[in-house]
């Protein structure tokens, strides 16, 4: 599948809007000044995801996932290396500890942060398309990328939008990866809908 520049620009823009909203919400909620930017958005085939992205190489990643189904189906997820996740959460909550680590409460907090980012990104796309999807309950997963992606189901996945996002907070520069994994044909549907919407707007 060839993704033309207009479509890729539109996706990039929508993800940008989503993470911008997520950052605004996180700032209001936590009273911190967090900036979230999306410097890079890549379209990769699911089969290449495991080999191409060194950002996902850690054997223990923390992921907040959200499955969606409807006109197009897939999973949206926010992934961090666990030490970055723990550092992000302890900084956001203003805790002062020497060695940040995720416990039950911090996992739950990370789940909320991921929920805010996933919902904002999905919301930004769905607002433009005026579509309704069905969503699963947001889930927190930990493990290497194959465990998180449940590669047993890999056959049904086709394309991945990988957005590498920086959480900039105080002196921290934490990389979080937003992945939108689409089932077979789903990205084509999304791009078609986006194209139709853009044509209608023009």
């Amino acid at each position, binding site marked *: 599948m060839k993704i033309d520049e207009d479509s890729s620009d539109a996706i990039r823009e929508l993800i940008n809007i989503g993470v911008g909203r997520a950052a605004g*919400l996180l700032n*209001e*909620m*936590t009273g911190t000044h967090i900036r979230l930017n999306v410097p890079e958005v890549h379209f990769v085939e699911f089969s290449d995801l495991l080999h191409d992205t060194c950002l996902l190489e850690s054997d223990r990643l923390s992921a907040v996932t*959200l499955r*969606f189904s409807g006109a197009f189906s897939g999973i949206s997820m926010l992934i961090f290396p666990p030490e970055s996740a723990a550092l992000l*959460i302890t900084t956001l*909550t203003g805790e002062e*500890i*020497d*060695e940040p680590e995720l*416990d*039950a*409460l*911090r996992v*739950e*907090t990370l*789940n*909320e942060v991921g*929920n*805010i980012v*996933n*919902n904002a990104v*999905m*919301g930004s796309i*769905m607002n433009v398309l005026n579509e*309704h999807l069905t*969503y699963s*309950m*947001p889930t927190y997963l930990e493990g290497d990328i194959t465990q998180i992606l449940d590669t047993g189901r890999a056959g049904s996945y086709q394309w991945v939008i990988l957005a590498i996002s920086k959480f900039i907070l105080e002196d921290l520069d934490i990389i979080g990866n937003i992945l939108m994994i689409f089932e077979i044909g789903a990205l084509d549907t999304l791009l078609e809908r986006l194209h139709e919407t853009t044509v209608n707007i023009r």
Partner: protein
Amino acid sequence: MKQHSTPSKCEYFDILPAGIICIRPDYTVACWNRTVAEWTGISKKEIVGHDLRERFPHLKDRRYGIRIQQVIDGGPAALFSTQFHPHFIYAPLQQGGQRYQRTSVHFFRENEERFALFVIDDVTELVSQVHGFREMKNRALHEVEERKRTEDALRKANRQLKLLTGITRHDILNSVAIAVGYLDLMDGSSESEKETYMERIRQTLEKIQHQIRFTSTYEILGTNEPVWQRIETLVTSPGAPDRIRIQISGLDVEILADPMLGKVFDNLLDNTIRHGGKNVSMVEVDGEVLGDEFLLTWKDDGTGIDPADKGRIFERGYGKNTGLGLFMIREILSITGITIEETGETGEGARFKIHVPPGKWRAPTGV
């Protein structure tokens, strides 16, 4: 109060141990289960059909409003964690305080009507356990840290003890052997020879006295915790003879070192006086920040160090006097990872460079 039909699922919610609230897009309460009624003390009758925000005005805040609206519009569930929203709704505990809650808000539709369903879990016990676990872990970490520090201090003290015992035994035995040797030589020697041997024995005994005094001075090295010390004060305190002028610059810093750090500068000055030659008149002590480290330079205008001696001046026993002054300087500094080297040119004076690594120096507190 607005009149609406009640969602068919409401009666089932009463059997759930979680707090369940169901609202319509205008925030009027459609379901209020038994658990949430018990927690809040607000009965179904009092709240169903009323705007939820009348009882819980904080929900008008954008932080909640935007996310709940997204759910009402058919978006994904919204999660409200305990750390960011410990008390989603006011639910006091009998023993005082409030219940800690974890809340999620979900969309559902019935008969073309949209609802937002709040599921509120009481996680008070979990929060208390996690806090207890965190405290226990912190205590354990501190205890391990404390133990490491104590072991480290013990190891250092032991090392110093061995070192000083070694110096005392080895050097004093040598001196005693020399004195005994002269006593043997005195047998059958002339009066003038006897006088010479007596003088040598006296000098040897003085050396033994000096060695014993030395060990008593340094016996506490490494036994006390390193402390932050202001360099400027330490460098200016030694009493230099009138013929030697000490010029300092850039020393307005504190260094973390063994409490005997002052001896380093006493010994450096002693080294200048003893070995700088009769024309030595000036000592310059400069400090500068070089990258992460702090570099302190001690430079005199004496005769300098002979190239043949350069590599060995910090070795124990090497030198013209006791051979322990520069050795002890290196030992004192090494306790906190500070290093020293000699970089002067022979004939142009001695130059000692002291390298203080990052974390072991700082601007003076209160400056």
